[in-house]
């Protein structure tokens, strides 16, 4: 999966600030599509897209933990 076609995850950066590891709720439309190790693009209003990796998916798939890829 290339960066161009990997899932895009909308987040509210007001709550995340500069955090590089965080857990966010998933919209229903993307539930069931993410697995640990997947790469995604994190985006939000007025913030450049950030590459991130899936660290964990909750058992009910309501939340996912991401790690921003900095290198």
């Amino acid at each position, binding site marked *: 999966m290339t960066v161009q076609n990997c899932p895009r995850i909308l987040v509210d950066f007001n709550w995340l600030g500069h955090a590089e590891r965080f857990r966010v*709720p998933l919209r229903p439309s993307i539930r069931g599509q993410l697995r640990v190790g997947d790469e995604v693009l994190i985006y939000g209003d007025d913030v450049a897209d950030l590459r991130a990796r899936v660290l964990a998916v909750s058992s009910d798939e309501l939340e996912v933990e991401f790690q921003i890829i900095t290198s």
Partner: protein
Amino acid sequence: MNIVVRSKMNLTDDDDVVIHMGAGDVAHLVNTAIDSYPRYAGLLPGRPDRGAFVISTFAAVDGVSEYDIVAAMRHRRFATAKFRELKDLEIYPTSMDVDYLPFRIMQVHFDIVIPDGGWMPPAGWRLGLPGSLPDGLVVRLRADSHAILNRFTPLPPREGSDKRDKYPDLTDRR
């Protein structure tokens, strides 16, 4: 991640309230508000079964400066308003039970409610499904959000999104 309403609403007329202005399209700001709607279940008095559409702000109070707020964020565009210019809006002191933001910044976060005209999610409603919100509601949310943003005076954009970048001189902007 749960929203917590703090008990203390400690803003006075002359306090500065900081908001990120988005990238120029209010639709993005409203999309974020729509995405967060379920997490605000119970925020509004008398509406325990509904969420809320909100816009995040931070107040320069309790020893937290505008500089501190901007430095804690990744956004590039910010604006400020005096609390007296916002007093007729529905505003709640809210925090989140995670520590992604510095604690002192989290403690000066306030949510401005975007009026929803009494919209009630229908039974079985799920965010993110096609047509999950009436078009008229989305149009109204955008218009009201635009009106809220217009109460704020923009600050010069930051030169970059990294917290180590140079920031505008917040003390000399007016």
